[in-house]
């Protein structure tokens, strides 16, 4: 049985992390401009969540933290070393855990569904799975040689 190609995992992580940066940037810019993100599917859930006290952590917009998290994850995808694999795993684990918590808050405390937040939670879940797979399969192996699977 052939192993998962680390290069493919890195590319998938880079792609999803870049999507995450874009998504979080949209949310951060929407608030910075004094407005709220617009739910494409309609409804006011995005505005409600953005206006809630949960949208900030220690005074920092959660979307800004999201940009930083996704950007760091993106960076780990460019290196095939144990440090990058482990850092990617820890970042994705933290992002996944926080996404689970925020989704709970959104649905059961704020009682509103923001499709952008849910999309980010799905992205982070997939990233966590990919980073975990990368670490489990490739931890302890030498850096991949460019051009080789």
């Amino acid at each position, binding site marked *: 049985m052939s192993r998962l190609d680390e290069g493919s995992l890195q590319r998938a992580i880079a792609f999803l992390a870049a999507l995450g940066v874009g998504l979080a940037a949209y949310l951060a810019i929407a608030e910075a401009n004094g407005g709220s993100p617009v739910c494409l599917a309609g*409804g*006011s*859930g995005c*505005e*409600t969540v953005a*206006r*809630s006290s949960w949208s900030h952590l220690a005074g920092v917009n959660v979307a800004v933290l999201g940009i930083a998290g996704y950007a760091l994850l993106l960076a780990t995808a460019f290196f095939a070393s*144990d440090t990058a*694999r*482990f850092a990617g*795993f*820890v970042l994705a*684990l*933290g992002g*996944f*855990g*926080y996404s*689970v*918590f925020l989704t*709970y*808050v959104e649905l*059961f*405390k*704020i*009682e*509103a*569904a923001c499709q952008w937040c849910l999309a980010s939670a799905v992205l982070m879940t997939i990233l966590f799975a990919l980073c*975990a797979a990368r*670490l*489990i399969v490739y*931890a*302890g*192996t*030498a850096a991949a040689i460019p051009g080789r699977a």
Partner: protein
Amino acid sequence: MSEADRRSRLLRIAAGATFLALAAVLVLIAITASGSGDGGDTEIEGKAAVAKLLEGIPQRQMTLGDPKAAVELIEFGDLQCPTCAGYAEEILPAIMETQVRKGEAKIDFRNFTIIGPESAAAGAAALAAAAQGRGWSFVELFYRNQSAENSGYADDDAFLRALARAAGVADLGRWDADRARMTGRVEETSQEAKNLGFDGTPSFAIKGPKAGGIKLLGTPETTGALEDAIEEAG
């Protein structure tokens, strides 16, 4: 360190980190769930009485009664005002039961915030409930759950959310979003009351075919006085 040792060490640390992260998330959720931020554990009194009082009477925005009723009784009130609460429980129910239920009159509640800034937040919450047809239910329940003026309860999110829930607001998310947009309307009606010369709450005015535009009633002290004013205006 060999490749196998390094791999084993990394995976052990990763497993530990995963365990700690999951435990942290569960603890966070448990702490958040036990908080009162959603108003779910705030006890609201008078739900049954208010439901019975308003049952079957149309609520449209902040107007209670048949929108086509010839006479419109306008109440300028402050949700923190204990006298207004007294009117809500002692003076107005008889009018709702007779003239409003029969379609002879409708009552329009307008915010006149004179007690403090908390009243504006409460008034905006009532208007947001009114946007979903539950304005009067919200106002009546607020009056029945008043605390000391400007003590921090009237603009407390958990309290207002619990009231909205008890009032039957269907979309609490929309209600929450609407509140911020309603503060301007609260200021408008407060200014309207001042322009009419009112300086206390509750103050009443009436519109009707025989009222000659808008007639100021001030603060009639009995149900009978308000009933008579409605009769005369219609």
